[in-house]
């Protein structure tokens, strides 16, 4: 598996909800090698902004990558203005991705952690078509995104913070209320959500693969900025700090401390 830098071409961009965008990029090699749960980093066009922005891969179709992201600052603000024909320098595919198991899959995601679940659901469906996939998705309110895309591959359970759609509460409340049975959890979302899922899964002795994020500089494992606490001594630095960009972003919940 290799990593590349490329000038990707914008195929299309649309706004899914206020502040949430879907960007489709034509790539040379990166899409062809990307796996569910991996990410790419995008460089802005502004030379005063040096660091690339890591964004999870939402979907791969042939040589195109789809990114669904939230505008949170300068970089994502710039990306949201791209339109067909624009180019953007990217680096990837980065990170390890999810390990697809032949067990009843439950995808658990909240907010802008939801996008990587689409490619994962596609990947599970392709590998094990007989497995019934459940996706438990948490949103702030009824302004959802990607639900119809994920419904093509999975039974979707929705939880909203304000109760305006689906179950009133968080994704763990939804799992309990709907008696969602899992052979393995795959999760991405805010740290409190992942902390809750880790406790729930470990309490029931179910494997949980969780995708983490942290401020990154290099994105390839050299700078040691984006570390997370690990239970055991990590292989790279022999302390208790795994590199999210290189050793992750997906970890077995039992290996990390949140």
């Amino acid at each position, binding site marked *: 598996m*290799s*990593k590349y*830098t490329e000038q990707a071409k914008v195929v299309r961009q649309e706004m899914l909800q206020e502040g949430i965008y879907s960007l489709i990029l034509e790539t040379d090699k990166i899409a062809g090698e990307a796996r569910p749960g991996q990410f790419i980093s995008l*460089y802005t066009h502004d*030379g*005063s*902004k*040096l*660091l*690339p922005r890591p964004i999870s891969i939402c979907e791969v179709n042939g040589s195109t990558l789809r990114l669904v992201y939230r505008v949170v600052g300068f970089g994502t603000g710039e990306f949201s203005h791209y339109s067909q024909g624009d180019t953007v320098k990217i*680096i990837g595919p980065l990170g390890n991705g999810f390990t697809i198991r032949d067990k009843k899959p439950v995808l658990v995601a909240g907010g802008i952690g939801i996008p990587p679940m689409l490619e994962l659901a596609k990947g599970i469906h392709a590998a094990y078509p007989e497995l019934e996939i459940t996706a438990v998705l948490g949103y702030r309110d009824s302004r959802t995104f990607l639900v119809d895309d994920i419904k093509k591959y999975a039974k979707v359970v929705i939880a909203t913070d304000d109760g305006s759609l689906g179950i009133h509460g968080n994704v763990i409340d939804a799992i309990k209320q709907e008696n969602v049975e899992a052979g393995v959890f795959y999760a991405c979302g805010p740290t409190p959500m992942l902390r809750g899922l880790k406790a729930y899964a470990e309490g029931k002795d179910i494997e949980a693969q969780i995708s983490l994020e*942290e*401020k*990154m*500089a*290099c*994105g*390839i*494992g*050299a*700078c*040691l*900025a*984006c*570390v*997370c606490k690990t239970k055991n001594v990590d292989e*790279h*630095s*022999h*302390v*208790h*700090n795994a590199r999210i960009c*290189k050793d992750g972003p997906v970890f077995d919940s039992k290996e990390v401390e949140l």
Partner: protein
Amino acid sequence: MDICTSVNIAGVELENPVMTASGTFGSGAEYGEFVDLNRLGAVVTKGVANVPWPGNPTPRIAETYGGMINAIGLQNPGIDVFCERDIPFLKKYDTKIIVNVCGRTEEDYVEVVERLADEPVDMLEINISCPNVKEGGIAFGQNPDSVEHITSVLKKHAKQPIIMKLSPNVTDITVMAKAAQAGGADAISLINTLTGMKIDVNRRTFAVANKTGGLSGPAIKPVAVRMVYQAANAVKIPVIGMGGIMNAEDALEFIMAGASAVSIGTANFHNPYTTIEVIDGIRAYMEKNKIYDIKELIGCVK
């Protein structure tokens, strides 16, 4: 046209003057996926201590205008793992190996330097300028007496030439450069990062968990060029220049200011091919301007 880009630092001949800045390049394995490490003048490794260091809490970095602040805190696996894994990895390549050494106490530094004495590394760079650790690091680098003292102690124990890496967080860089020379340093490298701070106004707290961090990137380059110029004119030992180099033109500024070699740091994060582009760019400049030996350029601006 026959062009000579090789430089000599303390008896070590580098094929070209371009090396990596400690902490930005690991021990080369990660960037080896993008660049041919054989082409680099030298790889300067991430700082290594006598025992593993866990580093600081996250967030450890923040982007700033034309630069970034880091407070990694010298996370490293310790000298044993380094000798078993990183040195054999680098030995596979035709490049010089410069090991960056860090410590909390004088004894820590001595232990690492002694441990490296029989290892196949070319030079040692002594980090007395990290702004992100509570003990060691910059504490040794902000007072000329302690710079001279630690230099002379390590010089006695080191089998390889030693480069003292200086901090810009001082009133007069020439005083520190002279102190390193007086202690017996074979070369000096500068600048390490400038201590900085960024506030995250949305979270209403510090952008990096350590509160302060080291500012690097092109934002600091004019400060770095000025300090390299001052240091190079104050001492007789070679100077290795760094601080915000993004391209060959930036590197040539440092060389003309008096640097015998240059290091690429933060630019690696912006463009993983920067080191090679700088090497090629320096050669192209020399060809265009009919400079046959890079030594003609070192310190040519007086």
